[in-house]
């Protein structure tokens, strides 16, 4: 009743080949994207492009200095807000694994991680743009900080959970107070994992556009005032890609 062994082995081989082909197939778009970006972008990048501001619509030339600077400022501010809070919250979650508060906090972090970025943008608009009467880089930074938080918290918690309990116990046995155990022993031990989580979150928000549409808004000039609209790189790409002009 069984199919002959050769047929079965052949079938197995076919499925293996199919899996390999499909797996390679999903790498193709990525390579295509990278090639396209490099091919059409590499020749345009020079010192002038990086240091000058965009020309008015319809003129060729110009650069991206405003967006570059804006991106850096926005990322910097949101990192300052999100990283300390995120690490401390991760410490709390890993130190109090069973408590009720930790359960609800973990749940909130999970939910926050799944919130669509555009919804974060809406909320930041109502918290920070409308009451203060205008788009500002600060509101964009806070929206991005909200998006960073879950990633930092989760990675900190996961890293600290993996540390052996004996390290913590040894520190306590020497009579160290709780906050010094955390700051001087636990966090330095897990610093690698925490930093990789931080880098991941920075990479994530660096390319984020949707929450900035109604918060940082964009600005064709170089701006350093964080209470005013500011341009960032992803916003610039979006505006240029969807505008009817062919610059």
């Amino acid at each position, binding site marked *: 009743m069984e199919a002959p062994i050769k047929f*079965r*082995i052949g079938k*197995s081989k076919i*499925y*293996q080949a199919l*899996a*390999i*082909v*499909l*797996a390679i197939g*999903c*790498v193709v*778009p*990525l390579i*295509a*994207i990278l090639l*396209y*970006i490099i091919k059409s972008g590499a020749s345009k990048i020079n010192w002038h492009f990086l240091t000058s501001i965009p020309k008015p619509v319809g003129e060729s030339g110009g650069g991206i200095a405003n967006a570059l600077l804006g991106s850096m400022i926005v990322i910097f501010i949101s990192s300052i807000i999100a990283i300390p*809070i995120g690490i401390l*919250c991760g410490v*709390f*979650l890993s*130190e109090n694994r069973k408590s009720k*508060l*930790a359960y*609800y*906090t973990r749940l*909130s*972090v*999970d*939910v*926050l991680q*799944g*919130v*669509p*970025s*555009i*919804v974060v*943008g*809406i*909320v930041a*608009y*109502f*918290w920070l743009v409308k009451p203060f009467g205008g788009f500002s880089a600060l509101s964009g930074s806070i929206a991005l900080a909200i998006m960073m*938080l879950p990633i930092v918290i989760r990675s900190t918690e996961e890293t600290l959970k993996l540390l052996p309990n004996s390290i913590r116990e040894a520190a306590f046995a020497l009579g160290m*107070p709780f*906050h*010094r155990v*955390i700051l001087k022993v636990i966090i330095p031990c897990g610093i690698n994992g925490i930093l990789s989580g931080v880098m991941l979150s920075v*990479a994530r928000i660096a*390319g*984020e*556009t*949707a929450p900035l*549409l*109604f918060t940082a808004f964009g600005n064709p000039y170089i701006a350093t005032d964080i209470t005013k609209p500011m341009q960032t790189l*992803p916003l610039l*790409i*979006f505006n240029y*890609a969807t505008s009817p002009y062919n610059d």
Partner: protein
Amino acid sequence: MSQISALRSVTLKRLDFTRQKAEETVRIKRSYRHIWGEKAFRKTLIIIAIAIITLLIALVVTLVVQSIPSIKHVGISFIWTKVWNPVKDIYGGLPFLIGTLLSSFLALIISIPFSFAVAIILGEYYPKGWMSNLLKNTVELIAAVPSVIYGFWGLAVLVPLVRAFETKIGVAPIGVGIFTASLILAVMVIPYSASLGRSMIQMVPADLKEAAYSLGATRWEVIRTVVFPYVKSGLFAGVLLSLGRAIGETMAVTMVIGNTNILPRGIFSPGNTMASVIANEFTEADHPVYLSALIELGLLLFVVTLIINVIGKSIIKKFTQE
């Protein structure tokens, strides 16, 4: 002489005593400070944890409060009204709901074979070696590319391709539309289900697989009869998480979906998703009900992704605890 030495020893003792006393007070002070620091630190941690919960609650409350005008204006029929016409004050979310569901599910269907293939390759066929490392890193890189880059690439490369394809099969060659958006989304969500599926497949106990091999099963038979049934729920959770991601995705979709506020007639017609209509019209919304209707869409989006994510995460939790 002896009197002097006695006096000296007494003085020395007294000095010693005062020194001890001073050291002790310093120690006590220090330990007080430590206790104070410890308490303050614990309190800070608790306050931060509460702040995170408050943040989420405030987020939900803001969305609900801001969408009240629209809920009052349109009522529950918001979900099935077909017309979205802010000029005439008619707000119906159905075109966007359909657009979102259609593009996300289409994206899932396209991406599932690819992501499962990656999961099987990395989890079962080639779990080690530089080739699988390369594949793993490349797939993770897919998740790291900003969505606006995907949108840009879609607009510049994919749209002409789809247009040519549409001319060939004989539908109106628009290029932008739900199908194009689904293609982009499919690429974007592959890493989510693939990496989760990989870790699930690696958790299949080796003795189960070895037992099947010893009975004479081929590689594929082991995968189909042992590995798949074991990781079924895990793979499902991965698909759910990528669905949640696809539904909330904004920028790439906004750039290629065509942005028309009518009910899509097929997978090739242009449409709009909930996220893309918010991105397009939020800054243009000129009266309160219009704005509030957009926020209601945001609330709807939030609730849908919330449900999907919670189900997915609970499945994963159950799976990893077993």
